[in-house]
């Protein structure tokens, strides 16, 4: 239930906007994050953006998914 997914913001209209999950668009509420802009990657849970990811975060996440990750050193 605490599932949250990273999505790219494609539209911002005040405190709401649209984010893309692999091309599927979803309305998102940005009330919990200041200064969200188009192109940001945000973590979305139940329609709300909870956190912003840096480009390095997105690169790490994608590397985990495609098997090229090398950050396993604890």
């Amino acid at each position, binding site marked *: *239930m*605490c*599932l*949250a997914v990273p999505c790219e913001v494609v539209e911002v209209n005040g405190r709401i906007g649209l984010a893309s999950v692999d091309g599927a668009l979803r309305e998102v*509420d940005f*009330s*919990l*994050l*200041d200064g969200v802009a188009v192109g940001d990657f945000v*973590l979305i*849970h*139940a*329609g*709300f953006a*909870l*956190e912003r*990811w*840096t480009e*390095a*975060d997105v690169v*790490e*996440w994608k590397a*985990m*998914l495609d*098997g*090229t*990750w*090398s*950050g*396993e050193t*604890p």
Partner: protein
Amino acid sequence: MRPAGEQTPGARLVARIEEYSSRTGRTVRLMEVCGTHTMVAFRSGLRSLLPERVALISGPGCPVCVTPNGYIDAAIELSRLPAVTIATFGDLVRVPGSGSSLERERANGAIVEVVYSPTDALALARADPSRSVVFLAVGFETTVPGIAVAVRTARDEGADNFMILSALKTMPGPMRALAGGGEVAIDGFVCPGHVSVITGASVFAFLAEEFRIPCVVTGFEDLDLLKGVAMLLAQVAEGRSEVEIEYTRAVGMEGNRVAQQVMAEVFEPCDSEWRGLGTIPGSGLALRERFAAHDAAGRFGLEVRSAPPASGCRCGDVLRGVLTPPQCPLFDRACTPATPVGPCMVSSEGACAAFWRYGRRPA
């Protein structure tokens, strides 16, 4: 592309886990307290990769599972009132209460709408002011801020037909109860990643400092979970107890301040009943007085009473990590996903559902 013959990151992590495990020289019991971690652990097959002496046990991390029967009964009572629409996350619909479920009530004519977001429930209220829309507010810190925003928006708009029935809970209380209860030996906590996005990892410091239990806030990809387990084992092997963050791409020590502020503005701590753990002081969230117009229990004069679990149901023991799902006499007999007796078999993140789907041995 990885050169041929090079180990995968997962294989390297498993090797590291085996190395730390042999250094500890004993069985290490790690508890995950997030239903999403439970599901990842089963779906990925991670449990089968761990050494025999590393046990991953599920704790009270599924909000639907820890919600007691009395709350379900209250929601059902509300659904039977005229001009009331129940709006809820999907998992709750099939959870049996004492004598019925919302699914059964819907079949009998109650209006029960499954929503993705609390703002969807608010939209239902705006669309039909003649009906009271009651959102079943079940969840932990991850979910609370969005619900707080929806309530505050409804107050600002004067949408008094939008209400919530709160069973919202916070995680530190049950983790303290488990750590201090002595019923289950816990050598480390895989701390919930998305709860921590809101609270910050520092909320678990008391576990490391007071109870000397290692904590690692962990993400939700398969490799995140493997790395989180490796980090916990490293702490155990080296005799450390600290709060560490594996899920650095989303979690810091302080959390989301904006979310914390809106939570504190709309809600205040209250005592809360947890299935399997009883009433834990200060572990729930109730609407503050200035938002009383949006409190369904107050508006309808409804009391959420304590109600016993279904006969034979051992979900409470599963949620404390005392019992594994197959040890429950009802598991895969009277209780299956098609005919669930307890919530741990209903919720997509329940330990019983995860075990039933991924953990059973072929006949």
